[in-house]
């Protein structure tokens, strides 16, 4: 208990410090805060959409506004919430997990964050222009996104904003790779790294190699719009399908960028709360590498209906991804098997993740089969699938990670009661919102429509889905109440509130400026566990020296 005086949260040294800091922890918190702001903003856009769809007829918004809503909902969630959330968590915890004082390039780190935020603000600033924000979907398919069909400043702001955040993503990824390969503490071999770090290695490689394809697609699109080129205009010899190839060569790895780190988080939390080591460490690493490799060869399964891609090849590679994903599932089960599982909030969210992601993963295999994809592509079936993966998967795992790590970042525990309430509301809300969408898609409801005739029989499922969306909003509200109350009045966390394994639990909460006053010896993937056990065997006192 000698470290108690360090665990009292310190107030920030003035607002200016947040703008000028190059400390990876401060930048990590900036990333997380900005990501959560865009999570809420994009979520509000979704609530307006769900309200419009609750019953047949156009009640709330006109068609043009609706198109802006779904475009910016997807854009905000993918580029300004999902990716920054991943980079933010990596920023904060990668150096701590490998026993390093900071990232390899702290100034580049700060630059990447401010560039991301600038891009996000720019894209959303479209709402302030006379013609509104971009309105061609987050995928911005050409030629619809060209100047002839989408005139207006909002579209150009979108292109530049997304491109900036993409470049920032590459900078952050290179920084994380340099940190992990170059700054591990003595004894921290690659095969003693946390599984979270392994997932960040693969995620960073995916970002570094896939985001440039997005930058190219956006640069060419911008040239088509503003310089009169015709890369994607058939009239000038261009090809709309080329845009889709470039976009999805980025877009599918992006899905793994948004899920692998969360696999990593779940793989950190389940062992700690089961009080066992991870089952099949090398299997996890192998499966992660395999998913990363496969993810570059599956992009055209988003394009089966174009009739311009090799269906069997992309079907085979897409289905094969189910194999390493399956390995992970069974290794998670193996980790819990024989354990003594404590169902505190982080573990509850992991449980939610396992069931929801299982559902999303399985419908993904349907979509990998071209005959079935011809049937459900671009319908609500796909919307259901992607939300089970990215909401049921990534967002549940994100909340698990936040409940697990906010005590480390703030020094104070979040409320268990509110956390459980948050979990139950989110689980019920998510299934009410997204499960009926499978049936809507099967019954022929296309994506991206503001309205449907009553005669199509979609009203009931849509009403349930809208009710679910508002339950999700309520759940998120409970989370923010929990966050604000606990940051002020939560009980002190101490260094290691969960009985953790990895190095972040060997330092104070929050960690000091250079992270560690001393490091425990690193002889396995669980250095903090090892030291705790040795101390317990050495004497009844235990505790850190």
């Amino acid at each position, binding site marked *: 208990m000698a470290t108690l005086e360090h665990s009292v949260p310190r107030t920030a040294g003035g607002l200016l410090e947040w703008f000028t800091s190059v400390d990876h922890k401060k930048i990590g918190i900036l990333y997380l805060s900005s990501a959560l702001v865009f999570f809420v903003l994009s979520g509000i856009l979704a609530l307006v959409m769900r309200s419009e769809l609750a019953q047949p007829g156009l009640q709330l918004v006109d*068609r*043009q506004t609706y*198109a802006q809503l779904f475009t910016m909902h997807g854009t905000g969630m993918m580029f300004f919430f999902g990716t920054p959330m991943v980079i933010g968590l990596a920023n904060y915890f990668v150096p701590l997990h490998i026993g390093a004082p900071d990232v390899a390039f702290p100034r580049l780190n700060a630059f990447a964050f401010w560039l991301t935020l600038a891009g996000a603000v720019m894209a959303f600033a479209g709402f302030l222009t006379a013609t509104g924000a971009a309105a061609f*979907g987050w995928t911005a398919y050409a*030629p*619809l996104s060209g100047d002839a*069909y989408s005139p207006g400043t909002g579209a150009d702001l979108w292109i530049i904003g997304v491109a900036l955040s993409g470049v920032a993503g590459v900078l952050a990824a290179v920084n994380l790779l340099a940190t992990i390969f170059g700054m591990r503490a003595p004894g921290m071999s690659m095969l003693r790294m946390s599984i979270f770090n392994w997932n960040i290695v693969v995620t960073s490689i995916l970002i570094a190699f896939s985001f440039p394809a997005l930058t190219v697609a956006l640069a060419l699109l911008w040239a088509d719009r503003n310089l009169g080129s015709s890369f994607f205009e*058939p009239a000038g010899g261009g090809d*709309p*399908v080329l845009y889709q190839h470039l976009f999805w060569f980025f877009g599918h790895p992006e899905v793994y960028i948004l899920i692998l780190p969360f696999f990593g988080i779940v793989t950190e939390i389940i062992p700690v709360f089961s009080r*066992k*080591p991870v*089952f*099949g460490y090398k*299997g996890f690493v192998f499966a992660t590498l395999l998913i990363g490799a496969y993810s570059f060869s599956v992009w055209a399964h988003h394009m089966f*209906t*174009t*009739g*311009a891609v090799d269906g069997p090849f992309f079907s*085979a590679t897409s*289905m094969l991804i189910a*194999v390493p994903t*399956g*390995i992970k*599932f*069974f*290794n998670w*089960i*193996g980790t*819990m*098997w024989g*354990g*003594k*599982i*404590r*169902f505190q909030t982080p573990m509850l969210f992991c449980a939610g993740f*396992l*069931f929801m992601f*299982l*559902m999303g993963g*399985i*419908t993904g*295999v*349907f979509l990998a*089969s*071209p*005959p*079935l994809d011809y*049937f459900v*592509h*671009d*319908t609500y079936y796909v919307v259901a699938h992607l939300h089970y993966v990215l909401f049921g998967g990534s967002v549940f795992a994100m909340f698990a990670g936040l409940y697990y790590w906010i005590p480390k970042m703030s020094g104070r525990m979040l409320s268990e009661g509110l956390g459980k309430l948050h979990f139950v509301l989110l689980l019920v809300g998510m299934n009410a919102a997204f499960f009926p969408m499978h*049936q809507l898609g*099967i*019954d*022929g409801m*296309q*994506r*991206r429509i503001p*309205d449907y005739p009553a005669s199509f029989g979609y009203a009931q499922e849509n009403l349930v889905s809208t009710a679910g969306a508002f339950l999700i909003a309520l759940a998120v509200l409970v989370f923010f109440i929990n966050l604000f109350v606990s940051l002020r009045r939560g009980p002190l966390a101490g260094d290691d509130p969960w009985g953790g394994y990895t190095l972040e639990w060997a330092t104070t909460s929050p960690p000091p400026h250079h992270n560690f006053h001393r490091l425990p010896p690193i002889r396995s993937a669980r250095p903090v566990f090892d030291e705790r056990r040795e101390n317990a065997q050495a004497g009844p006192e235990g505790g850190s020296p």
Partner: protein
Amino acid sequence: MTRLVRPISCMALLVMVGASACVPQAPSVQGRAVNQLYGIFAVIASIIFVVTAALIALSMLRYRAKPSDDALPAQFEGNVKLELIWFAIPTVIVVVLFILTLQKLDVVTERAPDPESIIEVDAYQWGWSFTYRGEGVNISGGPHNDPELVVPIDRAVAFEISAEDVQHSFYLPRLLIKRDAIPGRTNRVDVEIDEPGRYIGKCAEFCGLLHAEMNFVVRAVPPLEYRAWLNERKQDDGNA
């Protein structure tokens, strides 16, 4: 463990029935192939879902910590043999699903050597133009004036799909098919409907303001009636 086999298999059966029943039977040769494939996928997916979910639930319920028990559980770190087994099982399942996919892919993409009619589909913002090749018949229309084309039952009809401006997608929900309409490219889809009726068509790829209103109707009639309709249309169009 063995006493759980019955409830789990009952559950799997229930999910299976639910998952297969939600897809309507398509009244076409190609659609039925999709129905069959979806049915097989649904059965296998239901088994995987229920077994995996049951294992997750079982491990959570069985190994939850008891309040007073503070001792560390056994610290085992893996089992290579087990991991190889659960590497092999999904691989086998995926290979089976892939082979089934290939078979049905041939059915849904097969081109009839001699289709009864070739209909050129031209999508635009926001409507459809259908031209019966060699017949001099064109049907077109947009929102609030949905075009209605007529096709014969029990005969293959080929649709050659393209677009004038932005990308659209030719989608017949009840027939379980869809193919993109892309400017500068042509996609062909053959359909053989076997039940007379009116089938609603939609645009599935977001194409701007009136995307949701870009509907059309395919009316399937017996071959003789189709010929009669075609001749009548030819005269109408010729007189116009």
